[in-house]
């Protein structure tokens, strides 16, 4: 009875391969556990081997059966704790498992193979290691059999073994004539059949009727009773052998009776046999057979792998989609046959969607975890390390990272080569390592991870590193490059020589990693997959090989969020945590540093970015009633309006009649803490949606270089969601890594005390319009009664303390709504050209530190410097000077003209890192008639000074600047004979006495407030004049040195 069915064989092959896939790693784990036997693990391996054995019997694969049987025996002893798995034993097991794998991979030839080597090795193991208790149980005999029926005597050990193998025990009573002969079979057939289904623990041929010998009749019944151990159940068994039920008896092993100690010789025989049994006596034929060599663990001897494992969940999903497809199709047929056209569109769109999903899901079935490739590496490392006398420890990370099947298949060999390289050339021998002060055991780590739509695989070792110079020497010696080229070559390129074809590091091509398969082949193969390889190495420290595979079929887990109206996906790998801030906590938890908003998270400051802003969109919140997206007017995170937000409050009112302060969803902040490399920041999103596994799709060529996006995906609802590149967003928004910030030595605290903010008086003219005036220019603020304002010759003035103060009204100078009638008003007094002027400010709001960066475009007009948001309101900053100039141009008519020594327009070098101040100061000075060259930094300024084309007369410089601050610049200037004559005026927001003193010591000639235009201009003029005089003096100095 042989089931020679191709399909079944195929299934057996696949199943067995799966069983064996884990066996290797499990055996290694068992070895590692040593005397501390992990029963579950051993049982797992045992069961795997046992199934293979069982099935192989059915199919007639006897050699497989024999080998698995031998393996089983040992595993059995181990799980009974009768054998401690030493390295030697595990070695034998591993080799046998390899051989088994080899047999299964070439199943049709397996019966011809010779596994005696392994079987013997395994037998030796048992013989050498069997413990006393085993010997005892081998001695002890028990009787099996039903009363009245033929009985057997077997050793206790045999019985116990059968039990452990999970076999049922039966007695099968055959009549060799009736059951065999008459059925046209031979006894040999029967024997083979029996062996195929189980084990003949014992057998007895009844020769009672042979007593007469040849003189007697040839018997017409020959009783043959077998004590049979098998996993097959009784019915199937009876069926298989066509035995009537009464001739098949189930034996309950517990019922076996011990036999009194007798028949010594018999016992001894049993003992000897037991060592050999229950191996079925299937001795390989003497004909020359194929040696089944243990397939080198590193090679991937995969037979045509035409099968794949798919999760049941996915299959269910596919089934559902198929169902939906059927429904839609039926609908369509109905519509078409009835001539209906009106509903076609919706059916079509349904079909469209279902088909997309179907396509998607089918593609997903091809995804496999890279763990299937990784799984063989522990063995590779173990064997190769052993062979080369090295000690290596392997760590694997990212086994769950999924790749398309075809990539998985292709990546195995290159990875193997790289790992072998690490062991062969990278990790040094233990003595060499300890001599270097390293741990005797080297570490190799294989890491797989996603990064922005690419799958990265990093192979890192802490070995000897790659010596670029040696590579260069070799390359020159081999004639691959010229010695000139070698000389010119950078270290990085030298290391990359390793990828050059025809290059091999070892003098003798080691049979382990050499053999002409070099790094160039690895590189080519990876590039064929569309990937890149790169090496990072440091001599004596180690080497990392980084493979990047741009797999557009990569599936990554991600979080779907909303920014504005659209959904975006953030790869899970970049997400560190999610933070939700209740509306009433927002003001407290969000702080400002410089002009950025940050979140204090467990003591660290996390820079914040709003997603919608980074994407250049309008932020929207979801108003629950009615459910629609509304523009969020929260310009600043800390917006006093929330939760007083109009829509929210109304909603509350309408429900309860009384306004309630409540933590509505609309008011809370969703912050996703993301990471990319060293960068860590918080991304504020408008809403959180689900976690989803998404398929990464490439963006077309028009968007390939978009820094913020890593790709796109199609969500379950058919819409496209863009995948964010967390690192790209950060760089586009100019978020720098925290290290950079600390390097600048900025004071990071809740208050912003820096150059880039200024003290501003906030006030309103018409209550709906807010304005600001720089405090630095304000002399004082007066409160007056409106009757005190007089009108003289069309001009508003204030009679005040015995003098007349000219007044300015905002609405007459700039676009502003007129001030309301009110009894009391404020007047902001400032000084211009030696005169005092007052600006009418009906309502004062506050004095604030406002960041200097402002919107200088939207509300640009003379008299308005720009606008900022203060208290959620657009606030226009007033240029007091310009206002005064506009209203009273006659005051400025007699401004001194500026001149240089040569009578040309003086050129000023302006050094200021704030864009805003730079433009302000430039415009100040240019309107005074100077020429201005502006630089953003001390270093740049120094470079500009050196430019022979340029000639400067005075330097105006900020103090706090990144690369070279004002003091440094001053020292350099004064220290250089070419430039020492230049006057330096420093502009700053605030300076203490010490600062000023230090400044003077550095060479600063004067300190001025940044926005005090008047004083600054005066200072510049003064110093220019002084310089002119000085130059005049020196110019007149005759060569003989006589002073005039």
């Amino acid at each position: 009875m042989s089931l020679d069915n191709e399909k079944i064989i195929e299934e057996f092959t696949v199943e067995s391969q799966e069983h064996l896939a884990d066996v290797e790693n499990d055996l290694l784990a068992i070895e590692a556990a040593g005397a501390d036997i992990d029963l579950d693990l051993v049982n797992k391996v045992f069961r795997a081997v046992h199934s293979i054995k069982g099935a192989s019997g059915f199919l007639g694969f006897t050699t497989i059966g024999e080998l698995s049987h031998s393996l089983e025996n040992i595993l059995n002893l181990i799980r009974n704790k009768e054998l401690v798995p030493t390295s030697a034993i595990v070695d034998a097991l591993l080799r046998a498992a390899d051989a088994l794998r080899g047999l299964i991979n070439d199943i049709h030839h397996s019966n011809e193979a010779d596994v005696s080597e392994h079987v013997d090795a395994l037998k030796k193991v048992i013989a050498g290691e069997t413990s006393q208790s085993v010997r005892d149980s081998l001695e002890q005999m028990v009787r099996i059999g039903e009363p009245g029926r033929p009985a057997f005597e077997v050793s206790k050990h045999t019985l116990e073994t059968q039990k452990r193998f999970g076999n049922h025990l039966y007695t099968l009573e055959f009549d060799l004539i009736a059951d065999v002969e008459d059925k046209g079979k031979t006894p040999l057939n029967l024997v083979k059949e029996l062996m195929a289904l189980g084990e003949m623990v014992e057998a007895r041929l009844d020769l009672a009727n042979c007593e007469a010998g040849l003189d007697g009749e040839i018997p017409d019944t020959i009783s043959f009773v077998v004590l049979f151990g098998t996993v097959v159940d009784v019915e199937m068994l009876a069926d298989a052998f066509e035995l009537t039920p009464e001739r098949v008896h189930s034996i309950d092993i517990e019922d076996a009776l011990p036999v009194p100690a007798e028949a010594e010789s018999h016992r001894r025989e049993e003992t000897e046999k037991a060592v050999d049994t229950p191996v079925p006596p299937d001795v390989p034929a003497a004909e020359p057979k194929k040696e089944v060599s243990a397939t080198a663990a590193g090679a991937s001897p995969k037979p045509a792998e035409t099968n794949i494992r798919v999760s049941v969940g996915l299959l269910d999903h596919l089934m559902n989609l198929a169902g939906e497809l059927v429904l839609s199709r039926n609908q369509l047929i109905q519509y078409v046959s009835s001539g209906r056209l009106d509903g076609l569109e919706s059916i079509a769109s349904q079909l469209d969607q279902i088909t997309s999903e179907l396509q998607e899901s089918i593609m997903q079935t091809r995804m496999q975890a890279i763990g299937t490739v990784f799984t063989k590496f522990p063995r590779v490392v173990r064997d190769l390390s052993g062979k080369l006398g090295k000690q290596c420890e392997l760590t694997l990370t990212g086994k769950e990272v999924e790749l398309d099947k075809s990539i998985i298949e292709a990546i195995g060999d290159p990875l193997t080569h790289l790992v072998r390289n690490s062991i062969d050339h990278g990790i040094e021998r233990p003595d060499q390592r300890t001599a270097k002060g390293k741990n005797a055991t080297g570490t190799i780590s294989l890491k797989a991870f996603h990064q922005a739509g690419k799958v990265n695989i990093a192979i890192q070792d802490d070995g000897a590193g790659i010596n670029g110079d040696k590579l260069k020497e070799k390359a020159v010696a081999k004639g691959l490059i010229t010695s000139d080229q070698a000389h010119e070559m950078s270290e990085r390129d030298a290391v990359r020589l390793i990828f050059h074809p025809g290059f091999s590091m070892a003098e003798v091509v080691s049979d382990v990693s050499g053999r002409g398969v070099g790094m160039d082949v690895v590189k080519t193969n990876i590039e064929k997959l569309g990937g890149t390889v790169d090496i990072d190495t440091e001599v004596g420290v180690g080497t990392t090989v980084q493979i990047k595979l741009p797999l557009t079929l990569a599936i990554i887990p991600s979080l779907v969020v909303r920014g504005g109206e659209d959904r975006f996906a953030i790869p899970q790998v970049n997400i560190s945590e999610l933070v939700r801030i209740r509306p009433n906590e927002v003001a407290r938890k969000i702080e400002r540093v410089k002009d950025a908003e940050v979140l204090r998270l467990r003591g660290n400051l996390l820079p914040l970015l709003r997603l919608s802003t980074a994407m250049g969109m309008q932020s929207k919140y979801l108003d629950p009633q009615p459910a629609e997206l509304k523009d969020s007017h929260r310009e600043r995170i800390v917006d006093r309006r929330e939760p007083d937000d109009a829509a929210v409050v109304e909603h509350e009112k309408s429900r309860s009649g009384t306004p309630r302060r409540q933590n509505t969803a609309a008011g809370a902040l969703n912050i996703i803490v993301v990471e990319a490399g060293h960068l860590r920041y918080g991304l504020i999103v408008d809403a959180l949606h689900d976690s989803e596994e998404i398929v990464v799709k490439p963006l077309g060529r028009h968007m390939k270089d978009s820094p913020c996006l890593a790709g796109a995906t199609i969500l379950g609802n058919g819409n496209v969601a863009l995948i964010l590149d967390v690192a790209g967003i950060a760089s586009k928004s100019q978020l720098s890594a925290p290290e950079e910030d600390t390097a600048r030595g900025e004071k990071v605290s809740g208050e912003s005390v820096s150059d880039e903010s200024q003290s501003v008086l906030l006030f309103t003219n018409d209550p709906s319009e807010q304005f600001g005036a720089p405090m630095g220019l304000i002399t004082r603020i007066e409160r007056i009664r409106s009757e005190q304002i007089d009108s003289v010759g069309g001009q508003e003035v204030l009679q005040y303390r015995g003098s007349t103060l000219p007044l300015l009204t905002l609405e007459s100078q700039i676009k502003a709504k007129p001030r309301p009638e009110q009894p009391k008003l404020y007047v902001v007094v400032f000084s211009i050209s030696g005169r005092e002027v007052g600006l009418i400010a009906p309502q004062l709001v506050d004095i604030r530190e406002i960041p200097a960066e402002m919107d200088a475009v939207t509300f640009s007009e003379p008299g308005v410097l720009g606008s900022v948001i203060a208290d959620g309101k657009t606030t226009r900053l007033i240029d007091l000077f310009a206002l005064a100039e506009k209203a009273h141009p006659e005051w400025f008519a007699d401004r001194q003209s500026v001149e240089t020594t040569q009578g040309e327009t003086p050129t000023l070098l302006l050094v200021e890192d704030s864009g805003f101040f730079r433009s302000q100061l430039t415009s100040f000075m240019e309107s005074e008639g100077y020429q201005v060259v502006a630089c953003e930094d001390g270093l740049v300024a120094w470079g500009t000074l050196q430019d022979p084309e340029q000639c400067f007369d005075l330097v105006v410089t900020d103090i706090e600047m990144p690369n070279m601050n004002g003091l440094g610049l001053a020292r350099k200037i004064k220290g250089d004979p070419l430039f020492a004559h230049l006057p330096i005026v420093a502009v700053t927001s605030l300076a203490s006495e010490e600062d000023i003193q230090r400044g003077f010591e550095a060479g600063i000639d004067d300190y001025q407030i940044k926005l005090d235009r008047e004083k600054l201009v005066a200072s510049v003029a003064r110093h220019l004049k002084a310089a002119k005089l000085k130059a005049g003096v020196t110019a007149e100095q005759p060569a003989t040195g006589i002073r005039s």
Partner: protein
Amino acid sequence: MLQTEQLDEMLVVKPDGDIVASALESFRKELQGLIEQGHVNLAIDLDGVGIIDSKGLAIFMLCHKSLTAKGGRLVVLTGNEDFKQLFHVMRMDEHFTVAGAL
């Protein structure tokens, strides 16, 4: 006719066909004949034998019984693994020797 060859005290008998029911009678008769001639130590060489059926198997037992009754023994000679296995499974090798060669 059976081929025979004397080898020390054993008479090697070489049947040249299948030991199956149809050929049994003549085989039996020949064996009986040899025994009557006084050859009580027989070695049956299975080299030329293809199939052994159930009754054929019985012949070996019968022969063994006859020989031992007369103080002799039976040896079965075969290089065929299947046959060896057969005799082993049937536990017949507990009664007489099954060997590759004498």
